């Protein structure tokens, strides 16, 4: 397939996934804001999350203080800020439109109506948008998009590039959300102590892992298990291991003459997560582990772009 087509498909699915990740984060904090909690704790969690997502600077350029309402609106609806959910949906749709001929009609129509709906919600109702409803809707549209992708697209190259985009973005998002909460995992902290369950529920809900956790451990929430679930569980759809496994498998399916080294690195990341133990990660320190992981993930993204997407200059 055309390199440019692969590029658009890859970014289309990255942006949909990003919109969903942001919607989850907003949703989790929104629920927290409804609880009788100290506002400082919520504000602090929002700040840490925006910092991990590199949104803090853009936010502070527009708003003086971190207040839940203005953060929710900024992340969800801001029309000027390129990283908002609103703009992720727009960019996803623009990428889809550029290759609409390579998508099934169902997938194109799903992405197109998502954008048209988002636009009319934001433009007509502006500040009247109910944030809780909006992020719920974004999650539903993302689920729908993924379902239509898997259910209607041929499982060929085009499909594999959309999957690579989805899982790279998801790995990035999980790693950043963990980063925002890394202080709770500090080496000095006693990993067996039961922390504030509400605070932890934000983290778990943001990764759709709250119920999964209960199912997997049937026990109180401990930082050790949370980290294990989100990093090393192969059966947890948003864990780093699971994402890397999918990236590697899809990458192998699109292999070309120059992509051997990129595949090797993806395989290495997968193998590292597959064979390591929680003790080793905590021994290294979670912040350092996450930093290294994010930088390797970024390297992988750059290599995929140069091997498949951005065409090499022709002589």
């Amino acid at each position, binding site marked *: *397939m*055309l*390199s*440019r*087509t*692969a590029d658009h498909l890859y970014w289309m699915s990255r942006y949909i996934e990003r919109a969903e990740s942001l919607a989850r984060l907003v949703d989790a904090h929104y629920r927290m804001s409804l609880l009788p909690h100290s506002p400082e704790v919520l504000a602090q969690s929002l700040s840490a999350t925006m910092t991990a997502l590199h949104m803090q600077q853009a936010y502070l350029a527009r708003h003086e203080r971190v207040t839940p309402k203005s953060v929710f609106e900024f992340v969800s609806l801001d*029309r000027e800020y390129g990283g908002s959910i609103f703009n992720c949906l*727009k960019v996803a749709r*623009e990428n889809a*439109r*550029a*290759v*609409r*001929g*390579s998508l099934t*009609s169902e997938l*194109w*129509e799903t992405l*197109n*109506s998502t*954008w*048209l709906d988002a*636009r009319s919600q934001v*433009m007509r109702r502006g500040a009247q948008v109910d944030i809780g409803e909006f992020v719920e809707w974004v999650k539903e549209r993302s689920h729908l998009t993924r379902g239509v992708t898997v259910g209607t697209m041929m499982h060929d*190259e085009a499909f594999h*590039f959309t999957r690579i985009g989805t899982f790279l973005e998801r790995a990035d998002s999980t790693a950043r959300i963990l980063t925002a909460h890394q202080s709770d995992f500090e080496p000095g902290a006693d990993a067996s102590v039961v922390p504030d369950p509400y605070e932890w529920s934000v983290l778990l809900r943001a990764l759709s892992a709250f119920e999964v956790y209960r199912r997997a451990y049937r026990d109180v929430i401990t930082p050790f298990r949370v980290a294990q679930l989100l990093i090393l569980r192969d059966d947890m759809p948003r864990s780093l291991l699971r994402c890397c496994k999918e990236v590697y498998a899809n990458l192998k399916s*699109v292999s*070309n*003459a120059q992509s051997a080294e990129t595949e090797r690195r993806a395989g290495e990341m997968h193998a590292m997560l597959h064979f390591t133990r929680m003790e080793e990660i905590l021994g290294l320190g979670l912040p350092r582990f996450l930093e290294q992981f994010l930088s390797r993930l970024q390297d992988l993204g750059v290599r995929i772009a140069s091997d*498949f*997407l951005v*065409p090499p200059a*022709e*002589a």
Partner: protein
Amino acid sequence: MSATPYNEMYVNEGAGRPHYQRYTRWLLEQPAERLAQKRAEADALFHRVGITFAVYGQDEGAERLIPFDIVPRVLPREEWVRLEAGLKQRVRALNAFIHDIYHDQQILKAGVIPPEQILCNSQYRPEMQGIDVPGGIYAHIAGIDIVRDGAGEFKVLEDNLRVPSGVSYMLENRKMMMRLFPELFSEHRVAPVDHYPDVLLDNLRSVAPTGVADPTVVLLTAGAHNSAYFEHAFLAQQMGIELVEGQDLFVRDEAVFMRTTQGPQRVDVIYRRIDDDFLDPLVFRPDSMLGVPGLLTAYRAGRITIANAIGTGVADDKSIYPYVPEMIRFYLGSAPIIGNVHTWMLRKKEDLEYVLAHLPELVVKEVHGAGGYGMLIGPAATKSEIETFRRLIKSNPERYIAQPTLALSTCPTFAEAGLAPRHIDLRPFVLSGSDVSIVPGGLTRVALIYGSLVVNSSQGGGTKDTWVLES
């Protein structure tokens, strides 16, 4: 010219034409609310499917629909048979003409067309002189605009031989009608049009460079910001071919390749939807970012087919149009089945004098204008507009032609106040490859504004489904 237009549906007040009878009976039975609801449904569907034109400078990502009217334009079989024969004849002659112009120029030597009309025409491409194209076909896809005059006669208003567009609306309008009113299709035997992309692909494959057994065809677009992008993406998808932009292609060793995830892949036929001027920055406009440097080298070497060929504009220019009936006689030795609209060529002294004396009754068109711009419609113009045009014509008579103001036929159409007659035309798409073929019908465009004769979508035009009845 008679001012009473031909009504496609009714002979006169109340009496329906035979081929419309079943439809009008059905229409009378429909409650107004149902029709209103169906019209709203059509709009919503067109938006969702993204059958839209990009409009810039308005609010974010604003896209406009081309209005779709739910009343079909119906053609009885016998009328279509004659039209089809006339269209095929005309396109055969036009292809023969372009071939001749870029080879021996016999038609000029025979004195049928004054040589300076061709050789000094900005659409004449000297780069094409002596190049042989597969099958001698230049205009693989031709959109011939047909109107019906007050006497009920079909006439050719314009030939579009460069990058004619609109066929996607023909296909989508049919799909929409079948979805909205399936019952109509069980009551009428409407000739299908869905196979257009298959016929187009067959034709494109049939004109691949000689020796290519399994040709790779691509569709070249200017990109997602082009107003006809929907059509480009739609046709590429329907044909199952790659939709490429200039940046996806490159030329090496006089052959054209596309950049793919698996490395360069050879391309044999380019169905291009960008103008000649932008195709190859090394030969035409050097500032073009849309084209492929070196494309013309590969073309001249016979390693790539471009459809439509470069230089077809020399045959669809308004200054050449008046000669098409002569071309048919010259190349095919037969009388034209569909005539032209009478045209005064203002470079001729006697035509100029007549036109200047009759401006308020005539339509004056700029020879190189397109899309309904640069045009004077005498009966609708103010005195000062007419005087402005008079000055323009006098200073550059050769840039204009004039035609009688046609009473374009009308078809009932949903207007704000309800069903009312509106002027229509018809653009059938004629495909040439190993043979010449047309899917029955074409795109019917309708001037939605009361009294307007301009059907272009850029100026308030809409479209209708076009039915050719099989019995």
